[in-house]
């Protein structure tokens, strides 16, 4: 099997699964229980939080464990909007955000908030100046993703953060789910108030992740109940998942340090090989994140291409998994002003640190074969 859909999810590492199982088996006490067994679970949770904070360069009390990217994004966006609506009801985001950001903003619109959706350029990049132009007296939140999940475009998040510092009344939220472990983004010092990360994109488990919330930023909780996670997220902590997530985080950041250049060169090989195929046009910018390439085969229905590759045990995707069940056009590519023949025929290959050059070359051969095979019915 050749798995090239790592932006959808990743294969959990054996070490991570091992941690999960051990914790679920040996530390099943409720961290909030008063007894010693509970206190051990609580200490393990605290250690996980300390380690996550240490790895991310933030303070332990700034780490709120969540069930993943969607929860983190919703918690940040709705949490700020509900908490600070008396300051203003205007919000800003871009046109190429992940559905968990986009739909959260749409939901807020239905509650009387006003949202400015910022245009992107041909490569999917947000111009910081356009954000500044959109800022009003009553703006309370800006959300920009660090790496686009469909294109791999890297946004100038640090530049935007530095500009937004001059507006102390608004908060800056970054969806860093695709960027974590692939690009360097120091959360501290980049003007970021809230930052979403997820476990299953870095070889952890589904249902794990964190929202980093800078001190002095208050949120309206999505979940009320107990006083877990500084009273922002009630509910008994998912200790096995959390420990597994933090372990995956450590392993991933270590791998990033050692193998980022290899991943970049793998993507370069992929890029070079893809650009040799005449029927195909690459949509991602050349200097994007090191793990994503998006391309279109105009005239070819992406789903059919995927199924044919699937027959050969090779797995890639159309746009993002989270929006792939919606028909036809990729909203992200449309926002980049690509023509319809491309927005309706886009495919995404997403790599992990565990892919090899052999796999890439096998995939290329298979793709060529598929294109040839489907040509009689589609390629025109």
């Amino acid at each position, binding site marked *: 099997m050749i798995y090239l859909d790592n932006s959808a999810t990743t294969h959990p590492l054996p070490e991570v699964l091992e*941690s999960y199982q*051990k*914790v679920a088996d040996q530390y099943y006490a409720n961290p909030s229980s*008063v007894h*010693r067994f509970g*206190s051990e679970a*609580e*200490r*393990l949770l605290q*250690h*996980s939080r*300390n*380690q996550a904070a*240490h790895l991310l*360069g933030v*303070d332990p*009390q700034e780490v709120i464990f969540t069930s993943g990217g969607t929860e983190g994004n919703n918690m940040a966006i709705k949490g700020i909007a509900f908490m600070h609506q008396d300051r203003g009801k205007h919000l800003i985001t871009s046109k190429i955000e992940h559905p968990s950001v986009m739909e959260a903003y749409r939901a807020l619109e239905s509650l009387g908030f006003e949202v400015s959706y910022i245009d992107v350029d041909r490569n999917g990049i947000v111009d910081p100046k356009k954000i500044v132009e959109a800022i009003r007296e009553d703006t309370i939140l800006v959300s920009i993703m660090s790496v686009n999940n469909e294109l791999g475009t890297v946004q100038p998040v640090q530049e935007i953060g*530095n500009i937004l*510092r*001059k507006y102390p009344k608004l908060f800056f939220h970054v969806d860093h789910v695709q960027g974590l472990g692939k690009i360097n983004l120091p959360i501290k*010092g980049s003007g970021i108030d809230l930052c979403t990360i997820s476990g299953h994109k870095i070889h952890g488990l589904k249902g794990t992740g964190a929202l980093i919330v800078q001190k002095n930023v208050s949120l309206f909780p999505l979940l009320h109940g107990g006083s877990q996670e500084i009273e922002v997220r009630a509910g008994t902590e998912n200790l096995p998942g959390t*420990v597994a997530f*933090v*372990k995956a985080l*450590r392993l991933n950041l270590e791998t990033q340090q050692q193998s980022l250049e290899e991943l970049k060169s793998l993507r370069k090989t992929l890029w070079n090989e893809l650009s040799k195929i005449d029927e195909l046009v690459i949509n991602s910018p050349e200097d994007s994140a090191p793990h994503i390439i998006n391309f279109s085969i105009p005239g070819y229905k992406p789903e059919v291409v995927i199924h044919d590759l699937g027959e050969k045990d090779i797995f890639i995707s159309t746009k993002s998994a989270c929006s792939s069940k919606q028909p036809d056009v990729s909203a992200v590519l449309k926002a980049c002003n690509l023509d319809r023949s491309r927005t309706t025929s886009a495919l995404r290959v997403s790599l992990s640190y565990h892919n090899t050059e052999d796999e890439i070359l096998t995939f290329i051969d298979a793709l060529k074969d598929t294109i040839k095979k489907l040509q009689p019915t589609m390629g025109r």
Partner: protein
Amino acid sequence: MKFDQIMVRYGEMALKGKNRKAFEQRLKHNLSIKLKAFPNTKITKTRGRMYILLNGEDPHEVMAECQEVFGIHSLSFAVKVEKTEEQLKEAVLLAFHDAKDARTFKISSKRTDKDFPIQSADLNPLLGGHILRNTDGAKVDVHHPDVEIKVEVRHDAAYVTAQDYPGAGGLPVGTTGKSLLMLSGGIDSPVSGYLTMKRGVEIEAIHFHSPPYTSDRAKQKVIDLAKELSRFGKSIKIHVVPFTAVQQKIHREMPAGYSMTIMRRMMMRISERIAQKQGILSLTTGESLGQVASQTMESMNTINEVTNYPIIRPLVSMDKLEIIDISRKIGTYDISIRPYEDCCTVFVPKAPKTKPTRENANYYESSADFSEDINRAVAETYTIEVNASNSDQESNEFSDLL
């Protein structure tokens, strides 16, 4: 271009006359402990200043660490550049952009190297003009600038110094002796320790542990608090006193109204003994007048009777809210509010005497002999040492899981 050094200015320390050298030595030592995590940094000393050469380490991360070191009045980033117009322009722009919220600036140039072709008076408008051209909304204000950028053209090179960052003030920890901090786990005592350290005092902590009335979580709280405090000095020893037997005896044999007063007196006696053993000459507490029953004038007088060691009480005149502000600032608040029983809450009588007297306390104590219990508590006291830098690695028990 990046900042390549941090300039350190002393505060009060500069006034120390003959002892100044020792103060400087200690500051340098304390800084070097703090900068262990940045192995490439190097500290150099010149007349009345220190410089931290960054050698590639992240300027802002190093700055954040240095800001926690007592004895420093203020710090600035600086960059050493070649004596060319281009390099100087780039450096002043860097300095201005680093000052995040600054809109107005002033450039103060000095030219020690008289061979440098541009005169100081011409350098200011030249470099200022470069900032104005390259920054939206920047303005010159020579009287009250948000940031003053200093440029010095010397013989070896030119130096550009950016905005001031505040230091922690006070005196370098270790220059004014040692004190034994009575650390309960509440909000006050860590703040008290912090303020004592600010005056250059090295701290050891003493904690009274009464299992099963108080849990390991309460003890862990104290360990975590000491870790936070150790950020401002070096490692901290915590002397953990097994206090259960003494407390039970007080509860059993002393009148309820006086049990709190007498418990405090026992703590004082034990603390003094531990201090003596460690060669420590004073005790520090988090007492603040009027806060609780044990902190009335009468209580303090009665409790204080059993020791003639100086007791440092930095919080004595502070309001609770001021104390909470500091505890948030130094990172102890969130630990202090963890809700576990401690030895001051379990045995609290319904109606503690707010106006105890020495006579009564002595009278009640004379009816039971505590000396054996105190001896045993002192003998069984054990010591834990914590420091901030090992906090994440220190306990290996979970390392296979994480």
